[in-house]
């Protein structure tokens, strides 16, 4: 490995790690806010999760969650924070793949198609070489 390649690997790991940290901290902060509101208002109520009822629509769907959060409802804000938490590993997976393709044009390339969606294409020569080596 040349020192230039080593540098970019380390750099990628740093970027992904920072993304993770930021995403998780943000999600945790949002959940904490929601938690404080929720506990202040409902803390003294009895807790019972024995029966499964399914969450109401405004804690399940995206518009419902945003509406609940905008109305300063503790549970809505918590769901928003959970959404951010779920989005974090997905974002870092996509970002990591993207960065790697940019750093190794001989392995794969990224571009956007006409609908502006990202497309990752493995390099054909690279695939053939992998097949040979794996045999």
């Amino acid at each position, binding site marked *: *490995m040349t020192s230039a*390649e080593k540098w970019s*690997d380390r750099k*990628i*790991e*740093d970027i*992904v*790690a*920072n993304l*993770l*940290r930021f*995403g*998780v901290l943000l*999600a*945790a902060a949002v*959940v*904490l806010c*929601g*938690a404080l509101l*929720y*506990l202040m208002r*409902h*803390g*003294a*109520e*009895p*807790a019972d*999760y*024995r*029966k*499964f009822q*399914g*969450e*109401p629509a405004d*804690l*399940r*769907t995206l518009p419902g969650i945003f509406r609940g959060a905008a109305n300063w409802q*503790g*549970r*809505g804000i*918590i*769901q928003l*924070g*959970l*959404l951010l*938490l*779920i*989005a*974090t*590993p*997905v974002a870092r*997976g996509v970002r*990591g*793949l993207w960065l*790697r393709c940019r750093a190794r044009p001989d392995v794969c390339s990224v571009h956007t198609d006409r609908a502006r969606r990202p497309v990752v294409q493995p390099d054909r020569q690279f695939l053939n*070489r*992998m097949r040979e*080596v*794996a045999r």
Partner: protein
Amino acid sequence: MTVFEFTLLVWLGSMVAGLLGALTGLGGGVVLVPLLTLFFKVDIRYAIGASLVSVIATSSGAAAAYLKEGFSNIRIGMFLEIATTLGAVLGAFLASIVPATALATIFGSVLLYSAYLSRKPRPKSEWNTPPDPLATRLRMNGSFPTPEGIRHYNVQRVPAGFSLMFGAGALSGLLGIGSGAVKVLAMDQAMKIPFKVSTTTSNFMIGVTAAASAGVYLNRGYIDPGLAMPVMLGVLAGSLIGTHILIKAETRWLRLIFSLVIVVLGIEMIYKGLAGRF
């Protein structure tokens, strides 16, 4: 008990789950699901939803720290994750066809056997394996910090690892838990990757698989904010403590803890399989 008391207790329990998850590369669901269903009498569907949240929280919380310290091998992780995700899709499809009870029993027995295999540290003679051409081409070999300095390692048997990861994803899609265990075992036993790298890389990987399922669960209404909130916050706190411990811990203790947790998981699987709870 009141919501406040419930939240506090679940938070504490989740901290333990997060701590174990960060140390072993597993998702924390092993501790959390039995804790919620047996002790707190939570319905299993809410418990699984909360467990998924805990897996993502452990994974993301720990992964950031491990990446910065240089333990997780991001290349191994991302490459193997392709296999796991494909497997998870297949597993989700097979869920309606395959009798999960039989599968759970077999899986549990495999886990028990693997716990027996992994508890002993690898002899030092096996530490410096020759480089494998495919692994080198994919630039998977790496190094990680030990108290004695930076230690290099070479990855072996990439195709075997890839297939095992596919199986891990399928199992996780079918049974709902256990993918972390198979990942660590595959990396440790089949690909001869150092234990701390296997567990930290597994931590890094499981977040994405769990995120996909969690999205579906949230939409179906299985994730309750009042329950998921203390789980997420507790697990994050626990996993952050866990990462500090792992960096300084001796691998032999980590292997022991991992084996113990796997034994519990194996027994749980066999019990559930035989009792027809799947």
